């Protein structure tokens, strides 16, 4: 199964490299939202950790949505999803491959967005770069698991670009809440362990949705 997952991940990354416009549109979108917040928030408030951690993760969610939209769009073109689904591999492996492809894509964008966020708002972000990256990985795993499942579910629906966030955002609230609280702890200089309960919630969210999505993906794709 690991080999099948790897095959799908490599294929997705190869497609992402060939379609660099996906990556650049996600990156520029993230930077644009950060700039809007930088201009919109009063200078005094913009230094407050409560607001900044919210801003960081809203940007993450909105730009992550772009990566989810493209993940099944390229499978639907020319009916590739059918060729993928008739392959003799566990469909859970297809799900994990597509999910991990999305996670890698999101992380690469985050590596570039985190310094921009630090420069615009809070220099301590750069000091905590590795923690922010770990947080982004954990958030991307949960977001990618639930998002890939829902993107697959809505891939045949006409208004999928609208329906996907409508389904995803309410379900992602626990993850968002945990990420915001952990980030507040990081920015306040308390370290990641200052929000240990939230960290456990985040890991639990990832584990639950990864397992559930792995198990139900087959049924979602075979309606």
């Amino acid at each position, binding site marked *: 199964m690991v*080999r*099948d997952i790897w*095959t799908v991940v490599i*294929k997705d990354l*190869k*497609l992402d490299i*060939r*379609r660099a416009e996906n990556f650049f549109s996600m990156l520029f979108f993230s930077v644009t939202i950060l700039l809007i917040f930088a201009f919109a928030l009063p200078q005094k408030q913009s230094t407050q950790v409560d607001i900044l951690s919210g801003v960081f993760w809203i940007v993450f969610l909105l730009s992550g949505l772009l990566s989810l939209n493209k993940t099944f769009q*390229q499978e639907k*073109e*020319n*009916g*590739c999803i*059918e*060729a*993928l*689904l*008739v*392959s*003799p*591999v*566990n469909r859970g492996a297809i799900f994990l491959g597509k999910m991990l492809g999305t996670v890698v894509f999101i992380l690469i964008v985050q590596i570039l967005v985190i310094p921009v966020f630090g420069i615009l708002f809070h220099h301590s972000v750069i000091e905590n770069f590795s923690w922010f990256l770990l947080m982004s990985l954990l958030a991307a795993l949960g977001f990618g698991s639930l998002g890939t499942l829902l993107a697959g579910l809505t891939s045949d629906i006409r208004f999928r670009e609208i329906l996907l966030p409508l389904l995803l955002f309410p379900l992602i609230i626990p993850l968002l809440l945990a990420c915001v609280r952990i980030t507040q702890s990081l920015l306040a200089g308390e370290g990641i362990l200052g929000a240990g309960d939230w960290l456990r919630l985040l890991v639990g969210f990832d584990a639950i949705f990864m397992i559930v999505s792995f198990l139900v993906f087959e*049924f979602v794709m*075979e*309606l």
Partner: protein
Amino acid sequence: MNPNANPVTLLSVRNIHKHFGYKQVLKGISLDLHSGKSTLLVGRNGAGKSTLIKILAGLMRPSNGEILYRKESIADNPEKYRKAFGLITHATMFYGDLSARENLLFFGRLKKITDLNEKVEHALLRTGLSHASDLTVKVFSTGMSKRLNIARLMITDPEILFLDEPYSGLDLESIDLLNKYLGDFKSKGGTILLISHQIDACYDFSDKVAFLIKGVIEREIESGNLSQSELLEQYQNQTYMRPNE
């Protein structure tokens, strides 16, 4: 030994129903597919032919009924079953931003094909696509994409073929290539279920013709009992339908 001397039932379709909401598309389809035999499925647009192929390929769940591959339910070991069949549909089913070779290698890896590189080169050569193997598939014509589909079937070497309008968009040379491949496939004991409106192109290697009418297989005829011209005439005039339809 001739593999077709004693044909075995590779696939048994038992009482398949499919409904979308209140609309019943398939109403109790039962069909046996034997090794070394080819079945041509004909019917009007909307009769349920493509839905049946999707169900047989595991792309859609039937509302009711069972499919047996070598006497085992396909639900018991879906991966073993998926390794056994090949599929051609209306869509090309290739990634436009990958080259022809990359596409074949990707799908070959998923099918766990041994000696994959050699098989890919051989299939590209046989389908006349060696010169275009490094081009991205998005620049391929419809005919070239169909040839690439034949190349995929060659490397994956299935036992059963589900073909949904495989002749559409093919020039005469490509039709010959496909028919030669299908002839070889059958002679090695493979079984084919084919949907096509181009009856003249596929009649010669069809052993049985099944008429699908409003979600029901109304008639199954050995092709020896019905000449091509009779079939064409019935097909064009829809005289194979029941009088009250």
